[in-house]
Structures are given as structure tokens and as C-alpha cells.
């Protein structure tokens, strides 16, 4: 610090505290709503302190769902979200680490072409090819399946670029040493490269888990059965905006539950999260 001005520090604490309050307030309200009953919320009489309905709301939400809609329980939606998020995270890491290994450690015709083919997918987010992709998944009979939810989202350039960048920093001497010791490509990959990449893999995993959990458009398109719904889609169906019968206490309980896994990941794996975020954007 160049100079020590007490008011500057005070200002910093003030601004940051106000920032934290504004950031937390919407979520705080959702938590409060999840502990109140329907009538209190829809009368607009909800106070800023927790009510006494938390047990009822969370039990009903997790195991029964809303009364009016098909009644799908949020517990099973969360299982779907979890499978999808894990599938996307693992799938992406697997295929991108393999392709980065090929691009960095082998010399073959069309190497640059292969790299560019992968690289260009950065410019084709799912939103710009919605219906043709939907049609292909439908033709392959993958609507309403986990494969259909996961597979089209695991190919992307970010993972490959990240691993490629990391492999470039691995000293050549390591490979030379392994070769002298008689290790083949598979051996080197398994015993040297993977152990060195563990932090990068974990960082990418954190980012991809959040990405997968929060997917909206894709599951919205390809899931028609309510048993295949993810929780982020499920909550939208609980809000019938024109309808006074929206069960807000259940919807807000669902919102809290839907936020919980990715938010916990960010808070408890903050170091990996920040690393992943910064490096995937480099």
C-alpha cells in the first residue's frame, strides 16, 4: 500500500460488504421462501426470518414434487442432473486428453488439420445449430436417454486446448528418459503424463461439472419424458407465470436444491475452480 488512509480501508469494507449483501440477497430470499408455507408467500407477507415449514417443504420437494404438475420428485431430477454433469465432465476430459496427447506427442499427416477441426468447434455453440443437432439425436434414437444428454456436449475445443497447452510445458527429457527405459506411448501416457496432469484434470473437472449441471437449452430440447428431466428444467415447469397457483414454496426449495451442488463445488474447491476458469479462457 502506498499510503495508509483509514477512510480508504473503511470505504473498501463498506463497498465489499454492500456487494456481498446484494449478491447474497436473492439466494437468502429463496432460502427463506423454502421455509414458509404457500399462503404466507402468495399473500406477500413473507418476513425476512425463516419460517417453520422447512421440513415439510424439503421432504415434499425431494420425494413428491409439486401437486399440480406431473408430480415428478425433485430428488430424481437431481439424480438426472448429477449423471449428466458427471458424464459431461468425465467424457470431455477423456476424449480431450486423448486427442491432445495425439496432437502433441505424435507426428502424422493431417496433424494440423485435426487440430483445426477441433479448434473451430469453439465457434459452433449448441445454440446456433439447435434443430439439426436435435434431428440427428432423434434419428440415432437418443431422445430421452442419458447418452443423448451427454454425448453431443462432450466434444469441445476447450479441453483439448487446455491439455495441449499443459503438455507443451512438460519437459522433453521426461519422454526421452521413458523411451530409454523402454516405455511405449501407452506406458508414458499412463505413468508419466497422467500423474503430472492431475491438477489440470481436476480444474477442468470442476468447470465442466458446473457447466454440465447448469445446461438448459439442450435438455429442454431432447427430454420429453418427465422422468428424464434435469432439475434446472424442472424448476421452470413449476412456474406457470400467469397462474396464481404456482407453488412458490416448492419452486424456491427446488431452486435452493438446484444451486447447492455447483455452489458447494465452487466454495470448497475454490483454488481448482479459479485455476480452471482462468486457464480455460487463456
Amino acid at each position, binding site marked *: 500500500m*502506498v499510503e495508509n488512509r483509514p477512510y*480508504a480501508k473503511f470505504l*473498501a*469494507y463498506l*463497498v*465489499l460488504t454492500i*456487494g456481498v449483501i*446484494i*449478491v447474497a440477497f*436473492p439466494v437468502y*430470499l*429463496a432460502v427463506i421462501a423454502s421455509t414458509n408455507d404457500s399462503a404466507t408467500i402468495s*399473500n*406477500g407477507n413473507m418476513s425476512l426470518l425463516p419460517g417453520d415449514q422447512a421440513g415439510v417443504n424439503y421432504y415434499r420437494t425431494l420425494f413428491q414434487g409439486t401437486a399440480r404438475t406431473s408430480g415428478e420428485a425433485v430428488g430424481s431430477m437431481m439424480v438426472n442432473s448429477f449423471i449428466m454433469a458427471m458424464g459431461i465432465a468425465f467424457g470431455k476430459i477423456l*476424449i480431450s486428453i*486423448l*486427442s491432445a496427447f*495425439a*496432437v502433441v*506427442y*505424435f507426428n502424422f499427416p493431417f496433424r494440423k488439420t485435426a487440430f483445426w*477441426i*477441433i479448434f473451430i468447434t469453439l*465457434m*459452433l455453440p449448441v445454440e*446456433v*445449430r*439447435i*434443430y*439439426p*443437432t436435435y*434431428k*440427428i*439425436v432423434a434419428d440415432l434414437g437418443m431422445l430421452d436417454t442419458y447418452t443423448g444428454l451427454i*454425448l*453431443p456436449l462432450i*466434444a469441445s475445443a476447450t479441453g*483439448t*486446448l487446455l491439455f495441449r497447452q499443459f503438455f507443451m510445458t512438460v519437459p*522433453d527429457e521426461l*519422454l526421452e528418459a521413458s523411451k530409454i527405459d523402454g516405455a511405449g*506411448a501407452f506406458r*508414458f501416457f499412463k505413468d508419466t503424463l497422467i500423474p503430472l496432469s492431475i491438477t489440470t484434470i481436476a480444474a477442468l473437472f470442476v468447470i465442466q461439472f458446473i457447466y454440465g*449441471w*447448469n445446461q*438448459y437449452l439442450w435438455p429442454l430440447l431432447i427430454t420429453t419424458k418427465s422422468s428424464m428431466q434435469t432439475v*434446472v428444467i424442472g424448476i*421452470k415447469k413449476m*412456474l406457470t*407465470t400467469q397462474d396464481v397457483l404456482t407453488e412458490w414454496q416448492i419452486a424456491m426449495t427446488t431452486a435452493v436444491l438446484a*444451486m447447492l451442488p*455447483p*455452489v458447494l463445488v*465452487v*466454495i470448497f474447491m*475454490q483454488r481448482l475452480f*479459479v485455476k480452471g*476458469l482462468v486457464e480455460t*479462457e*487463456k
Partner: protein
Amino acid sequence: MEKRAIFSSKTLPYLLLLPQLAITFIFFYWPASQAIWQSFLLEDAFGLSSEFVGFENYRTLFEQPEYYRAMVTTAVFSTAVAILSLSCALLLASQADKQLRFGQGYKTLLIWPYAVAPAIAGVLWIFMFHPTLGMVSRPIKTMGIDWNPMLNANHAMILLVFAATWKQISYNFLFFLAGLQAIPKSVIEAAAIDGAGPLRRFWTIVFPLLSPTTFFLIVVTVVYVFFETFGTIDAVTGGGPAGQTTTLVYKVYSDGRLGGDLGSSAAQSVILMLIVIGLTAIQFRYVERKVQY
């Protein structure tokens, strides 16, 4: 940049690349080329046959006032979110950059909204600003404003901007903080010795040195508003009232799904692709270089 030591194998590299390339071709290139091809076709009302019509779909598209409205909506939406989220994030980051007690704690408390899905963010904000039961709408109404984001397009847009900004602040904050911490302290000390106060130091030294970060974040935020806010819009307004909060991406979705007009939807997809390519090109040309090939 290439490795000195490599493996020599004729088939192995292709096998390693196969999974990624297969998925890329099936789910990226094939549908993208289908979108381009479809944008030149016109289907009949029952979807039984289609004929090649050249640029007809594009011509009709640019004759629709709705399409221009979606463009304006997207532009307003992304500008508002970019300005609001970048300035809030910069304010917070410049304060968090000071030597504070609990600095790490503040950082944690500010970055977690990144993990909230855009659609969930929308749900949280509609709950606060709901015309009848919203906790924040009540004081607004007592001020004599007839607040109703479900009927009033301006109110709906304001709500969307808040929800989208709320989620994006954390990301921008993190990158601004990293940018601030990368500025050499000696430069700032030199300015302080020359008698520049904190504000002057900020505007003449810190802000200019941050400009690469700022520029990068503008592009990222615009991309975010274009694509990821789909969930927010669908949860909060569904593109309404009367299509007034329909962005370009939302229109691709609603024209194809609700309207069944696949030719027009495909033409819009192609235009979006061009926009993405443009944005990505800007990102790589002027910001950091990602690839050294």
C-alpha cells in the same frame, strides 16, 4: 512450438483422435452444414417436401420487423449487462485488491454466483420482483410505479438485465482482480511519490493498464448475453410480453419450435454463426493469443 521427442506410430494417433473427431463430426459439423443447407430450402406447410429457394429465407427474414426488434433487444440487453456487470465488478475488485483482513473471505462470497444456472438466477429474480408477491416490488409499488414485468416490456427487460448481471459479476470480478494484482506495485508507488492521489492513480495508470482485461471481459460478457442467457429469458419472460424480450438466440428457438418455420430458423442460425465467428475472431485478434500454430 513442437516437441523434440515424439512417438512414431502410423495408426495410434488416429485412434486417439477418433472419439473426439467422431463426436465433432456427428454433432458439430454435420448439423452445422445441415443448418446452412436448410437455410436455402423452403418447406411446405406439412413438412412433406421442400424446394431450393436460394436466399429467399434470408430475404423474408430481413423483411420481418420482428427480426430487427430481436436485434435491437439483443444489442440493448448485451450493452446494459456489459456496462453494469463490468463497472460493478471493477468497483468490487479495486476494493478487494487492497490489503484487507478477510480479503479471501470476501472473494469467496463474491464468486459463487458463477455456479448458479442462468435459469435459476432468473427464477430468483422473478421471485423478488414478482408483481404480486415480490418482496422488492412492494416498495416499488408504494413509490407509485405500476411495476409489472409480465405486462410491461421495459420492466421485463430491466429484470432480465439484473438477473443476467448478478450472475456475471462474479466472473468479471475474478478476472479484474487477477488483472489488478498483475500490475507492478512500483508503477503505482512512483505515481504516489509524484503526488497523484488514489483516484488519479486509478484513472491514469490502473485503468489503462487494465484495458486488455476489460476488452477481453467485454467480449466474454457479450458472448454470455448472446447465448447463455437463453435460460434466464425462458424462465423469466419466455420472450414476452408480446415478443419484446426475444433475443436473436431465443428467436431461433421459438421460430423453429413453436412456429415450425425451420427454414427461417436455419437462416437465423447461420447469421448467428457468422456473429460468433466474428466475436471469436475479435477475441483472438485483439486479446490474448490462444494458439501458437
